[in-house]
C-alpha cells in the first residue's frame, strides 16, 4: 500500500515536471510567438503595436516566402524519399548479428549523432569549387574544370539534398533495422516453404511488416527537413541568390537582419501550420496503410 502511494507520488511528480517543462518550453513560446505575429515587434524596440492580421495578409503576397516554401517542400520530398530508400537498403544489408555488422550499424548511425553545423562545414570542404570532390574528379579526368556544386541553384539544391539525406539515413537505418528485427522469423520460414524468395519476399512479407517503422521514419524525416536551418545556413547561407533559402532561414533573416520579429513570427506560424498539416496528412495516410497491409 505504502509502496503504491510512493510510486503514485513519484509518477505525479515526474508527470508534473514533464507537463511543466512542456508548457514552459513549448506551449508558452508558441503562444508568445502567436502574439508577436499580430504585432509589429522589432528586436531593437521595447514596445510594439497590435496590428491584427496585417502580417498575415502581407505574407500572402510575399514572393520570397513563397520561394522559400517551394524550396523547402521540394527538398523535404526528395530527401524523405531518398533517406528512407537508403534506410531500408542499409537496414536490409546490416540486419545481421555478428560483431562486424554491429560495428557497421554504429557507423551508419554516426551522421545522425554529429551536429548539423559540423556536418555542413565538413561537406563544405568537399563541395566548394576548390573542394575535395572537384579535385578528385578533375584529377581522374571525369571533369575538365571544377563544377559549381554549391554555385548554381539546381546543383546547390541537389548538393544540400545529398548532405541532408546522408545525415538522415543514419536515423532511418536504425528505425528500419528495429522494424526488421520485429518481424517474426516464422513468417520468413513460412514464406520459404511457400517458395517466396528475393524481391517477392521483400514485397509480400518484409515491406508490409515494416510499415509502422515507415510511418515513424517518413514523418520524422519530413518534419526534420521542413524546419531545416543549420546545414543550409553553413553550406550555402541560402544562396546563390536566395535560391536555397529554407523557410526557417528566411524567418531568422526577417527577424534579425530586417528587424521584423512580428512578421517573422507570422511566417513561423505559417510554417508551423504547414508542417502540422503535412505531418498529420502523411501520418494519417501511412497509419491507414499499416491497417490495410
Amino acid at each position, binding site marked *: 500500500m505504502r509502496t503504491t502511494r510512493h510510486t503514485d507520488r513519484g509518477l505525479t511528480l515526474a508527470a*508534473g*515536471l514533464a507537463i*511543466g517543462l512542456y508548457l*514552459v518550453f513549448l506551449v508558452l513560446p508558441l503562444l508568445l510567438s502567436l502574439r508577436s505575429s499580430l504585432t509589429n515587434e522589432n*528586436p*531593437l524596440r521595447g514596445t510594439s503595436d497590435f496590428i491584427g492580421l496585417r502580417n498575415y495578409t502581407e505574407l500572402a503576397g510575399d514572393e520570397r516566402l513563397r520561394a522559400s516554401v517551394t524550396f523547402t517542400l521540394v527538398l523535404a520530398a526528395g530527401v524523405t524519399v531518398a533517406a528512407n530508400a537508403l534506410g531500408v537498403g542499409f537496414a536490409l544489408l546490416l540486419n545481421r548479428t555478428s560483431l562486424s555488422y554491429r560495428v557497421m550499424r554504429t557507423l551508419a548511425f554516426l551522421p545522425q549523432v554529429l551536429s548539423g553545423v559540423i556536418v555542413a562545414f565538413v561537406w563544405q570542404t568537399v563541395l566548394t569549387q576548390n573542394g575535395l570532390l572537384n579535385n578528385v574528379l578533375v584529377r581522374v579526368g571525369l571533369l575538365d574544370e571544377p563544377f559549381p556544386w554549391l*554555385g*548554381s541553384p539546381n546543383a546547390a539544391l541537389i548538393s544540400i539534398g545529398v548532405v541532408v539525406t546522408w545525415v538522415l539515413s543514419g536515423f532511418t537505418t536504425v528505425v528500419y533495422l528495429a522494424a526488421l528485427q520485429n518481424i517474426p522469423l516464422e513468417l520468413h520460414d513460412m514464406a520459404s516453404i511457400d517458395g517466396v524468395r528475393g524481391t517477392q519476399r521483400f514485397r509480400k512479407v518484409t515491406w508490409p511488416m515494416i510499415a509502422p517503422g515507415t510511418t515513424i521514419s517518413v514523418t520524422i524525416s519530413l518534419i526534420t527537413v521542413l524546419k531545416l536551418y543549420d546545414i543550409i545556413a553553413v553550406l550555402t547561407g541560402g544562396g546563390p*541568390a536566395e535560391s536555397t533559402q529554407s523557410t526557417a532561414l528566411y524567418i531568422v533573416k526577417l527577424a534579425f537582419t530586417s528587424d521584423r520579429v512580428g512578421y517573422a513570427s507570422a511566417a513561423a506560424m505559417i510554417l508551423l501550420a504547414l508542417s502540422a498539416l503535412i505531418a498529420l496528412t502523411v501520418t494519417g495516410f501511412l497509419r491507414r496503410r499499416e491497417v490495410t497491409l
Partner: protein
Amino acid sequence: MIRKPLLAAGLAGLLAFTAACAGGEDSGDKDGQTTLTYLVFETPSLTAKFWDESIAAAVAETPGVTIEKIVAPSTDRDAYAKQLQQSGQFPDLLQSITPSNFAGAGLLKAYDKAWIDANFLLPSANTLKGEVYIPPTNSQIVPQVYYRKSLFAKAGVAAAPKNWAEFLAACDRLKAAGITPIELGGADPFAAGMPLVGIVSADILGKNPNWLQDRYAGKVSFSDPDMVTAVGKYRTLVAGGYFDKGALGVKYADSITRFTGGKSAMYPMGSWFLGSVPKENAGDFGSFPWPTDDGSVVVPFVGGGSMAISAKAESTKLAEDFGRAWSLNPANLKALIETDGAFPMIKGKALDDYQVTVSQVFKDSYAYVTEENNKVSAIAWATNDDALPPGVNDAFYAAGQALFTGDDVAGELKKLDEAWTTATR
C-alpha cells in the same frame, strides 16, 4: 488527483530551473569594479589573442573596469547584437557594428564630439544624424581592384586600366591568355556583391554623392535608367566570361588564396585584403580604383572604427573611457594596419609612427585616402547617414549573385526598390 504540496514542489523546481537559465545577467560592482560586456568578432586576422591583449591594454588605462568579452558566432555582429538585444542581453560595448541599425531605437550613446574632433582626421566619417557612435579610428576603400603585375605582363597588359574601356580590354587580353581575369568569392553574398558595389559607387554615387540621401527622400530609385545602365556593366563582365564560371561556388576565403596563388589576375575587394598580401611577393601586387567611363577617380570610402557604447550600459562614462583608450592605442592600430589592411585616421600620426611594416601596394592604396579626390560612400558598406536600411544590404548582395546567373537587370533592381520600401515603411 495532484496533491498541492507536490504541485508546489514541481513549480518551485521549475522556477528554480528557469531562474538558473536566466542567470548570468549580473554585471554589477564587484570590489568597486564595474563589469562591462564587450561584443567582438574573431577573424584569421583579428584573433582571440589580439582582442585579449587590446582589452587588457585599455583596461589598464581605465581604472574600475572589468571587461567580459563576448565573441560573435560569425562576422555578422549586427545580427548577433540584435539577438542579444531581443533576449535582454545587449552588450555594453559593441565592436564595429553598423550604428544606424541601433541608434534609431535609442540603444547607443554618442561619443563626445569635442574628443572626436580633437583626435581624428575625418571626424565626420561615421556621423549619423549629427552624432558619432563609433570613433573613426581607421578607414577602408570598398572596393579597390587589386591585380597581379606578372599576370598582366604575361597577357601583354602594359599598365593598370584607367577607365572602363581599358578595363574591358585588359579582361579580353587576360582571357585570351588563358588567365581568369577577375576573381570572385561568389559563395559569400558580401563578396559576390563586390563588383556591384564598385560599379554603383563609381558610376552613380561618383556623379551624385547624395544619391543615397536622395533615395531616402524618394527623389531617385534603383529602377532609374542610369542605375540600370550602370548595373548592366556587371552583366557585361559576366557575359564576357571574365569570371570563373563556377565563381558562385567559391568561398570568400578561397577567393583570397586563388588570387594570391596566381589563379586570377584581378580581385575587386575591400582594402582589408591588403592584410592578406603575401610578404614574399608583395611587389607583384598593385591596385587601382574601380574604373569609370571617363577615367575620373572615384574612391568608395568607408569610415571604419572601433566600438559603440550601449546607452543602457551600467556606466556609460566608464564605457566611453574604455572605448577612448582602446581607440587611441597605437598598438591596436598597428595590428589592424598589418593584418586587416586598415588605413589609420588618428590625428597627428603618420604611418611610420605606428612602426608598421607594410607593402608598397598598401602605401599606394592608402594614398587614395590621404589625397584630395572624389570620395563617396561605398554603397552597402557605409556606416554613416548613407547606410542602407535594415535588410537592404542582403538584398543588394543577393542581386549580385542573381545577376551572375540571370540577365534581368531591371527585375533585380525593382526587387531592391521593393526591399527598400518594405524596410523604410
